[in-house]
């Protein structure tokens, strides 16, 4: 080591770094042109693969949009959900995309870091009267709107009617979590199914969704009004204790702590569990004889209520936003409004439900194979719980995930696991 001049060694990257920092910093938001009406415009839009609207659906929508706006060309990009957030963040300084699909947990982070265009003033009052109020959270941060909701959805509560009947459990039991617990005990005792409950409690965001739903039912809150962690007491603690109890009693599949939503779907459609929370896509797949052994047996329902009488579903809506670095914000907004528009959404109802209240009167939704799901969804939209809307959401979520896992996998007492997590969450938000 001594043979290399240490000073030379150290100075090299420093000089390079200093020189490098200048051009690097200069790549801030490109100047925002007027965009829109004058001249042909090309928009880049970022969507995800393999959920709700398919790639073909979106290409169809874009073709229709381009027909109506001959001067605008749209270049769609499709990535996996897992890569969506990272793509948005990394592409922000370069201004690669004009329109991006965002999950309901990101507006605080992305808007808080000035990555999304504030479109509050572009809203029409008529829209606000008709858009499902629960879905607006997916694009709102601090009362400003940063896009339009596109794919509505909370986690739906599902149960297997055949199994309940076999165990002699009345379906009314499914209206409260206490009832669910009792029903699960009966299902297990009568050997209808080994593990009546299954969850997506893997060390991932999926676990926070399930936890949020239970936390809401038990009357808990993630954060209090002052923005301090509050999930380690009251309902938040009871929810985790309840989760733990279902594992200890063997009511929940022990593998739950390793499963994601898609794994839960597989377990349910194989008839290996009777009761589960999942996104609404599980319904149609449960009725697909190619992969399901429980065709016609699964029932979507409103989320059960906790002791306080609340039964919110976790909000899982997604929205479309215009990026703050878009050079054509007007054209981009036209695209967003078109895609989220009621007319467009009504053409693809078999893929995703619309975000428009009035659309639910359409016969396409009130009858047909999806009708039971639509009914459950619609009933649930009035009661959705949001995950914490803070700029540091991802870090907060990681701390809560770690806390929940250390209780459910590592055996740490629930109270201790959560108060440890709460202290870390306070540090993340405070610092």
């Amino acid at each position, binding site marked *: *080591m001594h*043979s*290399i001049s240490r000073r030379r060694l150290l100075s090299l*990257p*420093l000089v*390079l*770094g*200093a*020189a*490098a*920092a200048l051009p*690097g*910093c200069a790549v*801030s*938001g490109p100047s925002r042109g007027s965009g829109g009406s004058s001249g042909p415009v090309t928009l880049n839009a970022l969507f995800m693969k393999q959920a709700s609207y398919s790639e073909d659906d979106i290409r169809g929508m874009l073709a229709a949009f381009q027909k109506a706006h001959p001067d605008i060309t749209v270049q769609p990009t499709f990535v996996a959900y897992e890569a969506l*957030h*990272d793509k948005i*963040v*990394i592409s*922000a*300084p370069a201004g690669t995309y004009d329109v991006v699909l965002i999950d309901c947990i990101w507006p605080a*982070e992305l808007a808080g*870091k*000035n*990555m999304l265009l504030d479109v509050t003033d572009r809203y029409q009052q008529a829209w606000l009267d008709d858009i499902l109020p629960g879905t607006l959270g997916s694009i709102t941060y601090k009362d400003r709107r940063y896009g339009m909701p596109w794919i509505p959805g909370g986690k739906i509560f599902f149960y297997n009617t055949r199994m309940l009947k076999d165990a002699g459990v009345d379906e009314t039991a499914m209206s409260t979590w206490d009832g669910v617990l009792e029903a699960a005990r009966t299902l297990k005792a009568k050997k209808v199914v080994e593990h009546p409950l299954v969850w997506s409690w*893997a*060390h*991932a965001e999926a676990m926070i969704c399930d936890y949020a739903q239970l936390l809401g039912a038990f009357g808990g809150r993630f954060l209090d009004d002052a923005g301090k962690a509050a999930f380690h007491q009251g309902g938040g603690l009871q929810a985790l204790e309840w989760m733990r109890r279902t594992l200890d009693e063997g009511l929940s*599949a*022990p*593998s739950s*702590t*390793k*499963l994601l939503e898609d*794994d839960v779907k*597989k*377990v349910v459609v*194989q008839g*290996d569990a009777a009761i589960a929370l999942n996104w609404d896509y599980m319904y149609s797949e449960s009725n697909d004889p190619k992969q399901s052994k429980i065709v016609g047996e699964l029932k979507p329902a409103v989320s059960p209520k906790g002791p306080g009488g609340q039964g919110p579903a976790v909000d899982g809506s997604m929205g479309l936003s215009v990026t*703050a*670095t878009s050079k054509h914000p007007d054209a981009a907004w036209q695209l967003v409004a078109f895609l989220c528009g009621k007319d467009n959404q009504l053409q693809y109802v078999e893929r995703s439900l619309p975000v428009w209240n009035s659309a639910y009167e359409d016969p396409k939704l009130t009858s047909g194979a999806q009708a039971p799901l639509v009914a459950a969804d619609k009933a649930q939209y009035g009661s959705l719980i949001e995950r914490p809307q803070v700029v*540091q959401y*991802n*870090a907060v979520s*990681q701390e809560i*995930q*770690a806390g929940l*896992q*250390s209780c459910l*996998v*590592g055996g740490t007492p629930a109270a201790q696991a959560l108060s440890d997590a709460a202290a870390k969450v306070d540090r993340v938000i405070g610092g």
Partner: protein
Amino acid sequence: MSLTLRRPASTAPPAAGARRGKVERQWPLALALLAPAMIVVFGVVLYPMGRTLVLSLVDATSALQTAFSFSGLSNYTALLSDSEFWATVWRTAVFTVFSTAVELAVGLLLAQFLNQRIRGQWFFRSLVVLAWALPTIVSANMWRWILHPEYGALNGLLMNLGLLDSYKDWVGGPTQALFVVALVDAWKTTPLVAILLLASMQTIGDDVYEAAAMDGAGAVRRFLSITIPMLKPAIAVVLVLRTIEAFKVFDIIYIMTRGGPDSGTTTIAFYTYLKAFSNQEFSLGSAAAYLTVLFIFVLSLVYLRMLRTDSGGTA
């Protein structure tokens, strides 16, 4: 070993060492020959490296941030005083040591086996290449599926064979999961290690072994006292190479466990990913990256010291 920084006698190229007078005239040619590689590598990497170093010394918390304030080494001290960070370092060290140990031990035996003159050897050597050629993404997904607690093939297979009466969770708790992930890494990488070692083994002449055999040394004895010492330089290469790669392990974890269960597989690279990408804590992430390089560097030096041979750092 070009990785050594010491000045072993043999690093002086033989042709040049003899004629010191030519030193001055050689550097323009050396520069010309090295220029393409330097452009291709440094041209791409030095600016990002410098920028990352700068980022690690400021307070960047957004991809769009344009004004930074200098924060000195506070990102480094924040990490070094964070028990969670040390937990990821520890896990990464366990992963690295365990996977390299398995790869080295199995790789040595495998190389020894592949070096035997038996019929069908081409088939066995092809097998080794096969496991190596499967992309990491596929092998990680494959093992995730094979070991899955609900619809895993291993559970299914053992159940079909009547060896298991209920499904087992093969990935297990946090500690077990780390070892499982390390074994998956070893499955994919041991072939590379074996091939590197085999190549070196083939340079050991038969005469050495025959002389030893005549002195009455058994097969195990010959392996321990001839093969292993002769392979020292190769082992050093393998250790350094695998340590660098193992310390940066990301793909397998991204696909198989995403850091869980109970944070058991949150290695330093995955931690860096969470910080820099999920949370936009770019400065912390950058500091973590430079600390990673430091750890790799120190470990590499330790290996090279341990395995220093009389001939110095060869190659």
